């Protein structure tokens, strides 16, 4: 979870300046406007926008609702990085004198000021068939029995509030606007990983689209921007893992990934030169000959023979057999460290406070009577 400890609310007033990109899609007018306000020290970016709209300029357009980081309405860019306005406390920024630039989220068309057209976002979500497909005619009388451990596979994906911050920064989507994107794919994983959903295979086949799973460039901007700790990139990796587990391996991205595995369990080191034909196929590899020869001139195409074999490579081979035996396949392999990640954040913030994640109470609570 990307949450820092903010300053406690006090009772002083601070001065805050912002620059906001004003834009009218109808007239095409665009202007970077500066605003200066006085506000209580506990305000968030959203509170500042409210003050501006109430008292300075009623025409400022932005979305808001819950103001407590759960509805997902107020995604916008501050200094080029997408944030939830209601989560962004302004105290430190105001004190530093920095004047942030507020702009609408990226990768979506802008309607007015900070309001983007979310229709393309929702279209991609719908594309994933985002509803449970339990594959039965008659449901059981009571609930499906599923262990908490199994449900934990999708714990993070279920946190998604559909704010769009991940989509705003997605480098793949910027280059390929049809890329499904982190929010949609994370939503897809929410179902692929749900033990009650029986449509895994058809979902995965669908998500292995040209603009699907393997179009992700792994820039990790989505993980970085997500205000809820969903880690969409990891969800996409889980989808890749599940695809390969189900034998859906026709995509070049899957072939590319599989060759790394083959390399590691045969020679230990990546068999670079063979990577091209293994990923793209012989025909494509031949078409790339001129390019490859140019690379070869500069030693970028190491000879596949003799193979570059790691020392004690047998250990790597045995490890492969061992893990396959133990069967933590697919998304479960990526989840196993998840519980740890929660503790990691806590211990980092704790600093010197706790060696043991189970913190002892600092003060003995008074006993209850009656």
């Amino acid at each position, binding site marked *: 979870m990307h949450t820092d400890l903010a300053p406690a609310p006090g009772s002083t007033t601070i001065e805050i300046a912002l620059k906001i990109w004003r834009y009218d899609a109808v007239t095409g007018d665009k202007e970077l406007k500066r605003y200066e306000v006085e506000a209580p020290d506990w305000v968030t970016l959203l509170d500042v926008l409210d003050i501006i709209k109430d008292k300075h300029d009623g025409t400022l357009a932005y979305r808001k609702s819950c103001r407590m980081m759960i509805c997902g309405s107020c995604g916008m860019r501050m200094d080029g990085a997408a944030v939830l306005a209601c989560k962004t406390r302004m105290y430190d920024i105001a004190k530093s004198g920095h004047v942030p630039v507020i702009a609408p989220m990226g990768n979506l068309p802008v309607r007015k000021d900070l309001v983007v057209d979310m229709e393309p976002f929702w279209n991609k979500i719908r594309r994933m068939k985002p509803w449970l497909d339990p594959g039965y005619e008659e449901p059981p009388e009571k609930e499906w029995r599923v262990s908490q451990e199994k449900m934990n596979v999708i714990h993070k994906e279920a946190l998604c509030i559909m704010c769009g911050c991940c989509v705003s920064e997605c480098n793949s989507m910027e280059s390929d606007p049809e890329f499904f994107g982190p929010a949609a794919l994370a939503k897809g994983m929410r179902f692929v990983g749900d033990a009650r959903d029986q449509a895994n295979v058809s979902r995965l086949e669908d998500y292995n689209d040209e603009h699907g799973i393997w179009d992700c460039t792994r820039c990790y901007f989505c*993980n970085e921007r997500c205000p809820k700790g969903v880690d969409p990139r990891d969800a996409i990796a889980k989808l890749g893992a599940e695809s390969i587990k189900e034998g859906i391996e026709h995509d*070049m991205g899957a072939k590319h990934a599989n060759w790394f595995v083959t390399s590691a369990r045969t020679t230990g080191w990546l068999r670079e030169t063979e990577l091209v034909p293994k990923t793209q196929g012989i025909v494509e590899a031949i078409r790339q000959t001129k390019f490859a020869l140019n690379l070869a001139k500069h030693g970028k195409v190491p000879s596949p023979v003799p193979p570059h074999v790691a020392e004690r490579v047998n250990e790597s081979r045995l490890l492969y057999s061992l893990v396959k035996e133990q069967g933590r396949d697919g998304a479960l392999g990526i989840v196993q*460290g998840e519980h740890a990640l929660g503790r990691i954040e806590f211990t980092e913030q704790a600093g010197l406070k706790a060696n043991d994640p189970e913190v002892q109470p600092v003060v003995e609570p008074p006993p209850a009577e009656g």
Partner: protein
Amino acid sequence: MKRVAYYKGCLASLSAKELDSSTQALAPKVGLELVELETVTCCGAGDIHEAEPDYYLHLNARILAYAEAAGCDELLTVCNVCTLNLRQANWQLKNDDGLRERVSNNLERVGVPPYSGNVEVRHLLWEIAEGEGYELLKQSAHKGLKGLKIAPFYGCQILRPSKLLGFEDPDRPWSLERIIEACGGTAIDYPAKIKCCGFPIIQAREETALGELIQPIEQAKEAGADAIVTPCPLCHLSLDAWQSKLKESTGKDFAMPILHLSQLVGVAAGLEEAELKFKRHVVPVTPVLEKLEV
């Protein structure tokens, strides 16, 4: 001298030999004694993490175990992807006792020493951007870069996800700029310096990747950079080896030389071509060398 385990990774071993040779030559000058790990494998990149996640975890645990067995408490990397992979595996192992136990048992079963979680993984970039390494860097960069304009290209996985990397603010990084300045160069600022080069999908989705790749190169060129420096050999590969593809698709010949971090510092520290191996670059580095009168 700081004794660190040295994990060079796949590219530095083969197609990016220039990275390894320049790193090894530079290391003593910045106070690093490199203990080369012989019995290691590929870290798996993002690929094994995606295709066989449990295997990825074990491969990285094995690398960490051997670093620990070599008596080192630090593992030095020279590649962003290796850094993220190893750090991610390390965090999972350090903080989940049950996980570490299972993995260590498996390692022992195949003859690998167990891993007890006492290794820290750091990129060369972090070693020389501050502290003792930085001081030694300043001293050793005596030849300097003569004000050469260098555009830093960080590469995604040395910055994000910051909860696993955490060396610097992922949106306002400073390490490369600091090093460039310390070497007597001028750091160029441009928006795409923290964006993605597209390497992970350059084969599977070439068009998408090239749409990303063009941004740092074009922007650096427009900002007047003489060269780009990057701490990641995969970024180097796309920026350098795939630059010609941009010429095909856009008609523009950027002719932008791409330097590895160790080469940039190395040339400022007076390393020779035998160590720097600029001839291995696809985009000629000669314009830079001419400016530096090397």
